[in-house]
């Protein structure tokens, strides 16, 4: 089977499962959250797996998307779907504002992006801005609440995200990004526009988080700044990605399925035990299996998408 077709098959299977499973096990919120993390993990993957920038503050784009969508509904009276797009646009605008962060290397970038997400959070939640963002009092979108429609839109956003990663796995652009990650000087020598490619990957990953945040806001419809700017959202997306294996399509899918499942078994009532487990997982992965679970298969000669 040609490799492009096997990728498309993965995409179709994942989306079909997301559509069918809620009919078999009636817990739509669970599957919605699963899709949120599938998409966010792939967003982290696009940035970290393909360019080597680790965005600790990825949740900043998610929260910005949620607020962009909500304000588009409340202030501009847009219907929900265009409002979700507005959320994506808001996240891309934030990405453009923060693009200079890409000048920083490794650890500096990771920490600066965390600082940026916290700064956005404290601005949005600030009591002085109650007139604009409703400050710490949160948002209510009860008027447009429609869980089954927002579920379908989420399936669409997830499909878009998986297609984007598939494209990067199989295209010249994905190879270019990985070349930049591994050796920016040589890539620049080979005629690659390093800055443009990095910024594009950064904005794509911001767009994904913004769209996901927008649909998330629509789905839960009542939320506080702390809900959508919760650092543990970035942290879980990063851990899922690292666990599955970065730079692949299937790695993050695997990581989310296994760890999000684990989270739902033990994490919801006793989050500290789950936090302990994934903290230990990261430490062990970094020390003994830096390539994630996918590298176990690669080592046996199986090509992971």
């Amino acid at each position, binding site marked *: 089977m040609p490799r492009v077709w096997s990728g498309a098959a993965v995409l179709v299977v994942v989306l079909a499962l997301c559509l069918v499973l809620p009919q078999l096990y009636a817990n739509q919120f669970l599957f919605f959250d699963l899709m949120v993390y599938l998409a966010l993990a792939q967003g982290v993957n696009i940035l970290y797996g393909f360019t080597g920038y680790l965005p600790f503050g990825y949740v900043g784009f998610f929260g910005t998307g949620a607020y962009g969508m909500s304000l588009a509904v409340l202030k501009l009276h847009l219907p929900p779907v265009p409002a979700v797009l507005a959320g994506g646009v808001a996240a891309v605008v934030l990405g453009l504002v923060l693009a200079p962060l890409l000048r920083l290397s490794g650890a500096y970038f990771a920490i600066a992006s965390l600082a940026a997400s916290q*700064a956005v959070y404290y601005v949005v939640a600030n009591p002085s801005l109650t007139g604009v963002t409703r400050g710490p009092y949160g948002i209510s979108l009860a008027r447009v609440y429609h869980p089954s429609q927002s579920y379908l839109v989420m399936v669409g956003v997830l499909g878009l995200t998986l297609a984007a990663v598939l494209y990067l796995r199989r295209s010249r652009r994905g190879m270019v990004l990985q070349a930049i990650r591994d050796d920016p000087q040589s890539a620049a020598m080979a005629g690659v526009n390093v800055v443009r490619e990095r910024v594009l990957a950064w904005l794509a990953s911001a767009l994904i988080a913004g769209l996901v945040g927008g649909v998330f806001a629509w789905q839960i419809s009542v939320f506080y700044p702390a809900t959508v700017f919760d650092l543990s959202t970035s942290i879980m997306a990063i851990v899922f990605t690292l666990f599955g294996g970065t730079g692949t399509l299937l790695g993050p899918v695997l990581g989310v399925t296994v760890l999000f499942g684990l989270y739902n078994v033990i994490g919801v009532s006793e989050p*500290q035990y789950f*936090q302990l487990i994934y903290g230990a997982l990261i430490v062990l992965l970094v020390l003994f299996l830096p390539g994630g679970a996918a590298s176990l298969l690669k080592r046996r000669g199986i090509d992971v998408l």
Partner: protein
Amino acid sequence: MLVYALTAGVLFGLFYSLVGLGLNLVFGVLRMVNLAHGQFVMLGGFAAYLAYVRLGWHPLVTMVVAAALFLGIGYLLYPLFAPRLAASTDPEMISLVFFFGVAEMIQALAVIGFGNNQRSIYAPVFGAAPVRLLGERFPAAWVVSGGVSLLALLAVYLYLYRSRLGYATRAVMASREEALVSGLSVGRISALAFGIGLALAAAGGVLSPFLLGGVNPGVGVGLTMTAFAVVVLGSLGNPLGTVLGGLIYGVSLMLMQSYLSEWTNLLPYLLLLVVLLVRPSGLLGRGVRHA
């Protein structure tokens, strides 16, 4: 009000210098960002609380004991993780992720062990009467904390600039390879530096309940960010710069609290972003990609 804000800023600044110095020392010697630094500070805070409530220890006694204990722990832990991380493809990034995992574990264990509640210590343990400084009255705990931080900073200065081991430590900071070639036992010096970094975190942590109003398992992330802001302000890898960074941070914090209190939460993050973006050369050029 201005004199009050400036003086309180210096007292808090000395404390933040102490918290930042441990992070900077570890970065300077190991070339690794200890993302769990704030969590170690948090453990120091809980040590002060538990020793005071259960054993009746004075916080300054706890401080000495906790610092010695963390020094030992750091020294013994170093060989378990550092050589493996240093041998990986991208030590800077991999070690960041590693310490991030450590931070998550410490925070989870703190919630399991101590609960999620905010704990505070009866403040007059340092003397009930406020202390007069420059015509303003300050809580005794602030003045004592500032003074103790200053003593700890002096001790680190004497170690780094007036002792054989400190001389060797600075050699490793300047160039790990050349220090190895000159026959210094880089591994032992680095283990000691990591231990001292944790000891400084614990020492600062013991003071933290008095300056920050209490301690809970969630304060670690914010403290790591603040420490990083302080360190970057001064310049990474330069211990004296951290003291300057801490003082600037403390004074701006107090000025914000006096004149723009609603926006105080933003300060460490904005300061960090502005410094990183506007003056990355303040990082001795190490923070910038060359391509």
